[in-house]
């Protein structure tokens, strides 16, 4: 019986060293690259015709584009236009990693906290830099809610600061934990199927079927949540609205 956590093990497929760093090509790297290749396939091959009446693949690319374009426009506004390619890349990358992780025997790069945290930290630092660059020291007014009595500010400002700095953690743990939990759960119930045998195994199997559908939904939803929270953080930095 395999451990439910075994599916998350990093396996080095090709060993590389660069400047003293271990840059081995792992199963995680493989599925990231597969995600990039497939996404490129949809977005570059699909758009090769640039047809006015789109083919199926082109429709998929356009729907993805429109989905994120609307999200950025609604949540960040005109100021978010130049960050749109980044948000689109972020969404598509996470979506493809998540969904490809549902393929049996594949690997889910987003089920590793180091990956999600790296993305979240990059966004956090990036958003903070953008905010400081656009508004200078005025950026810190983000921590001071408007129209609040001074006494309450003593309480609210520390809370605002903590909630700001907790963003990279909540952002990364949300995605990582969802992926981890879904895959673990599937594995655990898969184990139940084997344990309960031919007679009792049908119940957990039926659960797995339903849960796989739910996991696909979560794979999409988490990519969406990651992208939209990035938009909201970006909106804070660009507009200082709170």
């Amino acid at each position, binding site marked *: 019986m395999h451990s439910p956590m075994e599916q998350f093990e990093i396996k080095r497929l090709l060993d590389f060293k660069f400047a003293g760093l271990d840059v081995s090509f792992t199963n995680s790297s493989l599925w990231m690259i597969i995600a990039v290749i497939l996404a490129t396939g949809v977005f570059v091959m699909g758009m090769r015709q640039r047809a006015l009446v789109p083919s199926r693949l082109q429709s998929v690319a356009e729907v993805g584009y429109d989905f994120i374009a609307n999200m950025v426009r609604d949540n960040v506004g005109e100021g978010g236009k130049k960050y749109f*390619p980044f948000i689109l890349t972020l969404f598509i990358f996470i979506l493809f990693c998540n969904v490809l992780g549902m393929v049996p025997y594949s690997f889910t790069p987003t089920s590793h906290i180091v990956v999600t945290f790296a993305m979240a930290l990059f966004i956090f630092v990036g958003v903070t830099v953008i905010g400081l660059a656009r508004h200078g020291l005025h950026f810190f007014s983000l921590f001071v809610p408007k129209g609040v009595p001074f006494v309450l500010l003593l309480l609210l400002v520390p809370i605002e600061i903590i909630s700001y700095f907790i963003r990279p953690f909540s952002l990364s743990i949300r995605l990582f934990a969802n992926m*981890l939990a879904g895959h673990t759960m599937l594995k655990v119930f898969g184990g139940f199927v084997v344990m309960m045998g031919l007679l009792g195994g049908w119940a957990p199997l039926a659960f797995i079927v339903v849960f796989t559908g739910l996991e696909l939904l979560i794979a999409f939803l988490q990519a969406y949540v990651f992208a939209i929270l990035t938009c909201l953080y970006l909106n804070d930095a660009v507009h200082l609205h709170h």
Partner: protein
Amino acid sequence: MRIPVYSALAAGVFALAVSGTAAAASGGMPQLNVHDFVPQLVWLAIAFLLLYLVMARSAVPAIADTLAKRQAKIQGDLDAAEKANEETRALVVAYEKSLADSRENARGVTRQQGEVDATAAAKRLGELHDRLAAQIADAEKRIAKQRDDVMAGLEQMANEIGQGAYAKLAGQSADAGQLGAKIATAIKGGSR
């Protein structure tokens, strides 16, 4: 928007508990293996940068261009349709105007022709009337002349009869002048 975010967070916390238990049961999470961090981070950077370049350089401009072209095409077609519609409306207005003009014209022609006809008829009627009047006058003149002739003959005959009767009665011829005057007076009185 808030609801999926919070429910996702809740699901995450629940999931963490489940997987934590699983990890504890199997002895350690692969996610916490520090030795695996660097290769993952390096390849994340490579993969993400690759996808970003693909998106920013190729996909986004291609899609933006296509969407703009499609929008322009749709707008152009709509404009063309609107223009055609406008032209049709103008044509209909022009047609109706020409129809009304023709109708007015036809009415004018009819009226004019009627007037011409009426004038001609009146003229012909007048001519007929004149001709008839002339013929009547002619006839009357002829009748008057014939009556005068008849009257003149009658007077002469009366004179002759008077002369004859006087000669038989008196045995001598009468004074022609005196007899004539008397007969003329009698005829005039009788004709009255």
